[in-house]
């Protein structure tokens, strides 16, 4: 049951040097997501034009998992159509429940490193915070 490598370089790097952690001036969609039980907090901003996520960013406070997961998510979905982002998010959330195939995992690219969170139930909420926030935001369309 050792998860010796959970805080690996990809994760810590996204946390320490996030690519998308700033305010997005030309965002046209914004939503705050909060984990009441642990205080994680993310404000997700997207710029969606003609059904495509042209840009995205986030600000917030929280553990490395919640912050890095949001950053990794933005890496994955920026430039993709909304429908594709929703599809990937669905795969990601299924991964957390331990129910995806190897091919699906590959589609998630770096987000695949969060697979083992399934063994850390207390952290699942952290890992999915950004993704749930995005789903809610895109559902608003």
């Amino acid at each position: 049951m050792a998860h010796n490598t959970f805080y690996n370089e990809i994760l810590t790097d996204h946390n320490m040097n996030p690519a998308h952690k700033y305010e997005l001036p030309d965002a046209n969609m914004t939503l705050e997501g909060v984990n009441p039980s642990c205080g994680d907090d993310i404000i997700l901003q997207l710029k969606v034009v003609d059904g495509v996520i042209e840009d995205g960013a986030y600000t917030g406070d929280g553990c490395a998992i919640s912050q890095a997961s949001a950053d990794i998510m933005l890496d994955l979905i920026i430039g993709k159509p909304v429908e594709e982002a929703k599809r990937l998010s669905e795969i990601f959330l299924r991964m957390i429940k331990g129910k995806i195939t190897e091919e699906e995992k590959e589609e998630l690219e770096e987000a695949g490193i969060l697979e083992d969170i399934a063994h850390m139930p207390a952290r699942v909420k952290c890992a999915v915070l950004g993704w749930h926030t995005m789903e809610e935001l895109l559902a608003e369309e």
Partner: protein
Amino acid sequence: MTDRKTMDDQIRRDFPLIYNHPEIAYLDNAATTQKPQMVLDAVRDYYEESNANPLRGLYDLSVRATEVYEDARELTRAFINAASTEEIVFTRNASESLNLVAYSWARTFLKEGDAVLITIMEHHSNLLPWMQAAKAVGAELHYLEVDVTGLITEEMFRAALTENTKLVAMTQISNVMGVQNDVKTFARIAHENGAVFVCDGAQSVPHIPVDVQDLDVDFLAFSGHKMAAPMGIGVLYGKRDLLDRMPPFLYGGEMIEYVRRDSATYAELPHKFEAGTVNAGGAAGLAAAIQYYQTLGFDVICEREEHLSRYAMEKLSAIPYIHILGAADGAAHHGIFTFTIDGVHPHDIAAILDEDGVDIRAGHHCAQPLMKHLKTLSTTRASFAFYNTENEVDRLAESLAAVRAKMGYK
């Protein structure tokens, strides 16, 4: 030093989970403790030799079950030096004990315009019941503020009381800062002010000798599971004349005298407050835990925990970027060390330590108003019991020292 190590070994052998899992350094004792063999044996023995519904049966087995249950009450009485077993009510946990007082005493005897005084360091279980009871009767809830060391002076306490203060609820030892409140003095002052004094003993009864007659508190609540007993059994001590005047809280079997269609009279203390089938198995476990404490003795327990506290303070405060809440003196912590590390979220600290087998807690420690008051959202807490060792403190310190590097800090 060899003496201490020998003792470490002897004690740890009593705790199966600890002894069989040397890979784990269990340092979340303020949340719940591990259980010694003799407690597990006592529970099993109860179910294998004496199990029946206590208090009512006329047959031998039920008499034995009643004896186990009432002997546990007597042991508990002696443990906190209550005047009578009638003053010992078995509950599920400290939270239920406090709710019992809040429902039965506070909602009956508090009136509009009265005030309830609690401190900002209270655990939610010694805060929410009063907040709700105060709301229900139109009383005010007052907070006594503390500074970062957590110290409450007599002056501060007197200043926080008003002539309307009818109830004071205070923890004897903070589950966040480990600081001990001078409950004896505050209870006296509260009484002079005409207020009832409720002491939350969840963190004190397992760690220091508590004598309710000496402290002269009106109520004392604590949990078995934080002192080597099984989960599901807690205690409420209450002064007999107060308990006598209180209405029952939970209603049902075992707590009645006569039941008529439209009215009822209730059993004598303490049964009046114990509705439904009692937890005799849990009481058997609590009794064994108390016996374990008595055999080891508070001399030894306090010496060991104080030693660990000093040692931990020394080791932890040497770590860069760490900030420990509360007093600078290790011995003032009663084994409880709550801290932050710059740039690393407490949840990540706990998760990284878990990877090293070091079990500590992260979060608000059920004390959100205190966290807010101390201007932090969330912190990390290591808490020791008498069965912990220097070696475990070392493991904690080493793990913590490596956290920032693991998170990518250079």
